[in-house]
């Protein structure tokens, strides 16, 4: 009898796992089937066309996403990385505990709230939507991820390396920069890739910062298209052609993200556990 | 009295590491048997083979025959779960369940075997087990206190009570007093004396004086092999193997 319960429990655990993985299979499956059929060269080369006209694409959205990610990195990567170094080097202090906690809290702030934040700070004074505002919002989202992963990677550097450098007379600050960071370089970069993968798919904060654009952005001071926003706009529209393009765009986005995720996993195999 | 456990040509591995090499031994019933030897000689692994705990480690393997009352515990029809309720174990470090009270800790094993026991019956069993473990007087007024609120020595006796509550036939003790202070150690040793009336006890210890104090029979292991096995008094005063004599006289280990 007890053995029966034991077996039933084991079976239940297996079933749960299957149930959890089922949506993954379904989503990827639909994306592949609906997205592949709508995939075309035009998607990558053409601008969006009005409904009814064939051959519309998402070239501006793809470039826009890359632009926004670039801008986000300008803010998020340096600030995040150096903050992460602080956390690793001076980690025992009260301030460090506060910053660490703050980073985790910031990580959990809904991205739409960060959108409002960027709107108030940048869109309002600039009197208009801009790539800067969108990039800033994404940078804020990246900040805690980069900080925490940098911290973890720096902490992984063995103390003996640090001590060897210090014993040779190298000052502590130089040790950190030339020895520790260089050793942790690979891990820090993968942490950055994680952050980039996270923001590449963000839609909500861009809705009223970067806004969107049916054409090429004329400058960074104006609205700019992005892949997620374009997918959203097309998805909620009533037009079948746009729906198909949405699937294709989503496939492109997901392939990029999955590839990044896999790359990160491979590079850090066994070294640290990615924290969501 | 017959043999409670009869081990024949026992071999055990951790992956490719051959840690128990062809050991044969007979544990008499109603006695205390000590297993001594230097660190790493396989003592703990050996007794873990006797309640099929060795195999829970990934990559671990056992070959050979272990007869409990004449039946091979590694036989095709043997159930590891049932074996473990007949052959109890006390570990080197006390491991009471931290989320349970003293009372619940003692009956933790009982609850697995039979769900429907009345509260009063459970209370009786708890008392009996704690008395046998020489802990009753110290905790009888605070049975609802968390198990981990006791001192180290008390926690170990709690674990003994927990093991006894399922009414095993054999009690395996893996260096039960190693992590304890001398006073608690003395209490545990006294306990072994009392318990061996009713149970068959196998104690692993690296403390020779302890083995001499508590056991009737002693086995000396070295590098995974059984070197000598015999009545404690004889093994310590007049060992037949030179290796045994070397160990006992402190020439190494």
């Amino acid at each position, binding site marked *: 009898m007890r053995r029966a319960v034991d077996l039933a429990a084991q079976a239940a655990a297996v079933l749960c796992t299957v149930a959890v993985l089922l949506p993954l299979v379904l989503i990827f499956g639909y994306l592949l089937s609906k997205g592949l059929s709508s995939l075309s060269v035009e998607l990558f080369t053409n601008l969006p066309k009005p409904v009814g006209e064939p051959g519309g694409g998402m070239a501006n959205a793809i470039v826009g996403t890359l632009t926004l990610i670039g801008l986000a990195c300008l803010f998020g990567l340096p600030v995040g990385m150096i903050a992460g170094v602080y956390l690793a080097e001076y980690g025992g202090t009260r301030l460090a505990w506060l910053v660490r906690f703050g980073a985790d809290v910031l990580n959990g702030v809904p991205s739409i709230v960060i959108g409002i*934040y960027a709107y108030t700070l940048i869109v309002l004074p600039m009197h208009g939507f801009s790539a800067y505002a969108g990039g800033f919002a994404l940078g804020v989202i990246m900040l805690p991820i980069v900080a925490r992963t940098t911290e973890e990677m720096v902490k992984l550097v063995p103390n003996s390396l640090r001590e060897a450098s210090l014993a040779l007379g190298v000052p502590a600050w130089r040790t950190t920069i030339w020895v520790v960071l260089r050793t942790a370089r690979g891990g820090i970069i993968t942490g950055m890739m994680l952050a980039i993968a996270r923001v590449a798919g963000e839609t909500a904060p861009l809705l009223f910062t970067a806004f969107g654009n049916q054409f090429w952005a004329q400058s960074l001071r104006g609205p700019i298209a992005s892949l997620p926003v374009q997918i959203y706009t097309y998805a909620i529209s009533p037009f079948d052609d746009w729906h198909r393009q949405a699937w294709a765009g989503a496939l492109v986005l997901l392939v990029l993200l999955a590839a990044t995720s896999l790359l990160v996993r491979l590079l850090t195999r066994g070294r640290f556990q990615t924290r969501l | 009295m017959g043999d409670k456990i009869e081990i024949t040509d026992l071999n055990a591995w951790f992956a490719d590491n051959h840690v128990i090499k062809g050991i044969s031994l007979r544990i008499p019933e109603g006695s205390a048997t000590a297993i001594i030897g230097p660190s790493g000689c396989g003592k703990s692994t050996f007794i873990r083979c006797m309640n099929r705990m060795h195999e829970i480690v990934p990559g671990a393997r056992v070959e050979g025959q272990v007869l409990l009352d004449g039946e091979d515990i590694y036989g095709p029809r043997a159930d590891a779960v049932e074996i473990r309720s007949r052959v109890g174990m006390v570990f080197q470090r006390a491991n009471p369940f931290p989320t349970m009270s003293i009372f619940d800790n003692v009956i933790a094993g009982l609850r697995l075997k039979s769900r429907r026991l009345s509260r009063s019956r459970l209370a009786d069993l708890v008392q009996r087990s704690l008395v046998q473990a020489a802990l009753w007087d110290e905790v009888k007024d605070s049975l609802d206190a968390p198990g981990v609120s006791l001192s180290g020595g008390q926690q170990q006796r709690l674990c003994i009570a927990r093991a006894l509550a399922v009414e095993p036939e054999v009690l395996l003790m893996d260096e039960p007093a190693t992590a304890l202070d001398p006073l608690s150690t003395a209490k545990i040793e006294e306990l072994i004396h009392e318990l061996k009336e009713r149970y068959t006890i196998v104690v692993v210890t690296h403390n020779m004086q302890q083995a001499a104090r508590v056991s009737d029979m002693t086995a000396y292991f070295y590098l995974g092999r059984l070197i000598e096995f015999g009545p404690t008094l004889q093994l310590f005063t007049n060992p037949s193997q030179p290796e045994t004599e070397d160990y006992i006289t402190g020439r190494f280990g």
Partner: protein
Amino acid sequence: MAQALREKTFELAWQLPGSKGRRSGGSSRLGDTVFRACTTLFALTLLAVLGSIALVLAYEAAGAVREFGFGFLVGREWDPVFRRFGALPFIYGTLLSAVLALCQAVPLTIGTALFLSELAPEWLRVPISFLVELLATIPSVVYGLWGIFVLVPWCRSYVEPALGSVFGFLPVFQGPGYGVGLLAASMILAVMIVPYITSVAHEVFRAVPLAQREAALALGATRWEMVRVAVLPYGRMGIIGAIMLGLGRAIGETMAVTMVIGNRADISVSWFAPATTMASVIANEFNEATYDLYTQALVEIGLVLLVVTVTVNALARLLVWSVAGVESGEQRG
């Protein structure tokens, strides 16, 4: 080379005071101070960003706060045309969709986490946990896309009629089902929070010491009984933390929910009915807000959203930290 370094270290180590090994040279002391000041500055920037988010939102929402006061939170009417703003429909939708999502996700994730920590052989554990984490890399908008074209029709054609016929005596399963609504939103949310709860729960279970498991096994427990007696109680606090992390995520989720919830600012008993959440109303109406009070009301909703998620997440982190390692993200061997 390493040997030489070690020897040199040993030679000089006893000369160096303290663990940082700071030399008494003046220039390096200056360098250290500057370094520390710089890094501290950037660390403070992070805190400043966090703090300013709250301040900025509070400032922007001030007008609405003054206008509606506490009634904002319990007001049922959201009517931009008549300048009447009450946030209850959004709060209701947010909380209910999140709770329903948890009800669906929690049993599945605990089961999966137990499978990973107790049953799965080594070669299976890594790929499966990778696949589970892959769920987290799917962007919200893609979930929404799939939700609109796959989940919603499925709900409309199969799930809602089935629930209505079997459990139709319950008011929550009554009424017409159009597919879009609370139910679909909760289902999509459940899928989205699965990876977060699973990964934390998995770590919590792995953190249970071997000694505890052995204690249970040695008493003659089956695998499941060992889990029940040693693993689950030990990991209780951590599991609650994991669930709260999932809750925090579900509350803040925007795009996928917006795309399948129907976006109607109304409170109805039925789970089939279209509803709305705090995040989705902001997403939908922020660019439509034509006058200041409208924007301020939306920002105030954002403020409420911020406060709720921060609180839930902070509590969750504290719980998880207390069980599965002091600093979240601590490396496990």
